[in-house]
């Protein structure tokens, strides 16, 4: 008896081990260390990014290497921005291990301009002043330091729209036409009302939206002032716009409209393919993410409509050159090229990252995406980008938002009352700011 049981247990263990080994092998392949140096006119530029900037996938590195013989580009990439930022901060503090080009998320750019302007190159040194006219004014201003330093060049912006599953809508008896939907969910109340209708006839166990955290994030993206006012004062607690977004998110949670998933968690990823939700608020950069997670099977099932409640912006990034970089001039030339209108337009057509260069926005106005039922993404996101408010950014935006979405998840997943959750969020933010 003990033999048989032990053997079975061992078999289970071995199976798990084999699985673990396979996982390890899949996760393996650590990034190469930056190669020696520019021997014989050869330069290796290292680029360290988070999420999916899509340069490699769009073939832009290859193109640049062809245009500049002798230049090799090596990219490392961290999936989660929070992890990326941690390791970047650690390396900035230590002064070593930095890449020639570092990505910076728009939620962090205020931390760079206000707290760390001495750690990054002032790109004016290399003539970045000349590029100012290429970019949307707000994008340029956000990366400008107190003394006018240019600390990063804008890559993409995150104009917001609503992505939805036409197949699930049809089965629930809802309209699938993007114009009609945009009319019916012109306001957030209309969106939640449609959600209740969907829930009444929902196919399978699918929910109206993925999580109330993403609902909150997209709604707060429609506001000019969120956590700080223009003078840098913390105002989030008494910001009526923030409270409105909160209340709508709570309403969605209490009406059971959400699939109760944690954004960016493995379960959330799995749910794209599983069809666990019918709508997901989507900034432009989310399109690539949806394609990646839902896969080929989702092609044609998705569509995109205008966002309820007006235009907004969620996310977007910058490319910066740290002071400790090895090849600063070459790095600047690379990022100037990558953020030029032509390359931004190319990137949008291939990957969906919406351009921050004004010239590129016009170039892509006619773009359509076959994956999303030929939705006119150039027009939808272009209009949103033009109408989106210029946001006031603060150094701790990201951390404060995290505390608020955590508290909303408590309402959504544990049935905590709105008041209790709000006080939890307040306590969390206090703890964060320390």
């Amino acid at each position, binding site marked *: 008896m003990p033999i048989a049981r032990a053997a079975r247990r061992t078999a289970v263990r071995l199976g798990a081990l084999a699985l673990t080994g396979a*996982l390890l092998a899949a996760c393996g392949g650590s990034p190469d260390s930056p190669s020696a140096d520019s021997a014989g006119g050869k330069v290796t530029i290292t680029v360290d990014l988070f999420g999916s900037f899509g340069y490699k996938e769009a073939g832009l590195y290859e193109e640049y290497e062809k245009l500049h013989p002798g230049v090799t580009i090596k990219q490392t990439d961290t999936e989660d921005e929070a992890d990326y930022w941690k390791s970047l901060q650690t390396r900035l503090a230590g002064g070593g291990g930095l890449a020639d080009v570092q990505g910076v998320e728009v939620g962090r750019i205020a931390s760079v301009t206000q707290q760390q302007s001495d750690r990054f190159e002032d790109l004016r040194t290399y003539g970045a002043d000349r590029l100012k006219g290429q970019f949307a004014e707000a994008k340029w201003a956000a990366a400008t330091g107190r003394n006018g330093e240019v600390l990063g060049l804008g890559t993409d912006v995150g104009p917001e729209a609503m992505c939805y599953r036409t197949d699930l809508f049809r089965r629930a008896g809802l309209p699938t036409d993007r114009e009609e939907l945009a009319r019916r969910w012109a306001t957030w109340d209309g969106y939640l009302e449609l959600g209740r209708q969907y829930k009444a006839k929902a196919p399978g166990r699918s929910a109206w939206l993925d999580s109330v955290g993403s609902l909150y994030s997209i709604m707060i993206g429609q506001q000019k002032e969120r956590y700080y006012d223009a003078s840098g004062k913390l105002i989030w607690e008494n910001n009526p716009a923030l409270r409105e977004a909160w209340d709508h998110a709570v309403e969605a949670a209490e009406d059971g409209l959400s699939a*109760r998933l944690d954004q960016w968690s493995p379960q959330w990823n799995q749910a794209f393919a599983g069809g666990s939700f019918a709508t997901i608020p989507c900034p432009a950069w989310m399109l690539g993410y949806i394609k990646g997670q839902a896969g080929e099977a989702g092609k044609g099932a998705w569509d995109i409509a205008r966002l309820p409640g007006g235009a907004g912006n969620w996310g977007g990034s910058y490319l910066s050159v740290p002071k400790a970089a090895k090849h600063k001039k070459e790095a600047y030339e690379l990022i100037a090229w990558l953020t030029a209108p032509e390359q931004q337009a190319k990137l949008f057509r291939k990957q969906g990252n919406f351009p921050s260069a004004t010239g590129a926005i016009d170039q892509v106005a006619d773009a359509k995406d076959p994956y999303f039922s030929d939705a006119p993404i150039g027009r939808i996101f272009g209009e949103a980008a033009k109408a989106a408010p210029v946001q006031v950014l603060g150094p701790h935006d990201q951390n404060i938002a995290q505390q608020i979405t955590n508290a909303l998840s408590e309402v959504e997943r544990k049935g905590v009352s709105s008041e209790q959750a709000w006080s939890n969020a307040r306590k969390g933010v206090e703890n964060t700011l320390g």
Partner: protein
Amino acid sequence: MLPSVPALRSPLLTPPVPPLPHPKGRPVTLTAPETPAPPRRAATSPPPRPGAARRAWRTLSPYAYIAPFFTLFAAFGLFPLLYTAFVSLYRVELQTPGDMEWRGLGNYTALFGDSYFWTSLRNTFTIGVLSTVPQLAMALGLAHLLNYRMRGRTFLRTAILLPYATSVAAATLVFAQLFGRDFGLINYALGLIGIDPVDWQTGTLTSQIAVSTIVIWRWTGYNALIYLAGMQSIPDELYEAAAMDGASRWRQFFHVTLPGLRPTIVFTVIVSTIGATQLFGEPLLLEGSVSGGISHQYQTLGLYMYEQGWGFFHLGRAAAIAWVMFLLIVVLVGVNALIARRRSRGERREGSSGTERRRRTGRGTRTPYLSRARRTSRTHTDRTDRTDREEAGR
């Protein structure tokens, strides 16, 4: 409280040591040598004793041998410890490490009013109990089974260590999938027997069970092997005697194995306590959240330190938590050791009086099999050994 008996302890602990032979075989004579001394030597008035260097080396060499460890320990153990203490007295942010603002013990006093700190302390304790107790109990049982003679024993003994050899990250990612709410294997299995899906990660107890399961899975085999080694140092004759007295396997386990394993158990409890206090990777990777779930429901002290340091970049506060953790471990290990020592001291007292009694009556109190074994083993060893082992193998 019984009075301590130092007189009985000393001969046990310090056996008489035979005097070491003098390192130098021959005494050095200072009389003039018959052959002329080399000029180099003649120049120095008192010639150095040839054994002096060797003797100095003999005195110093132990220090030289252990120096590498202590040098490395000073650089990578002691210095970080002291530097952390220094940092914990300041307000330091990772983005601006140059601006240090003196806070004195402010970081520490703030911790005592910080409800997240108390939550994480409580979680550390409950997860520690939830993981350590079943883990050590199962390890003991497994070791007992593996101690029997059976086919493929070496293979099984090796296989049981495999979870320990896997990386925390890989194991936790697999378990996070198993514990998934919507697509997890465990909820699927529960569904087969009619139980509604459990939101493992969200509930306080369920998420702590999930974290503990990973710890148990990884460490049970390791502890089982340590117990197995301990069991093999228990003399066979005790079991033989027990078997002859008709003691069942259970009685053998409780009255021979457990008492014999006490020092080993103390060791594993101490190591597990340290491990539980420092628990970090499993709760971090269960959902990939530094806050240990949306309500901090499975945030351990280690994870809270990480959240303060690398989530919020408050290095001073993180350093204070690190020091509180360090002190906590020192206290816990101290308490552990104290209890263990008190128990074994009590044991020794009991044991010694038992020996005396045994001497008189030929029968001990705690291990009655011992005396019987001594009487019988001379004649029956070979036969009983074989039959007993064969029986055990079945």
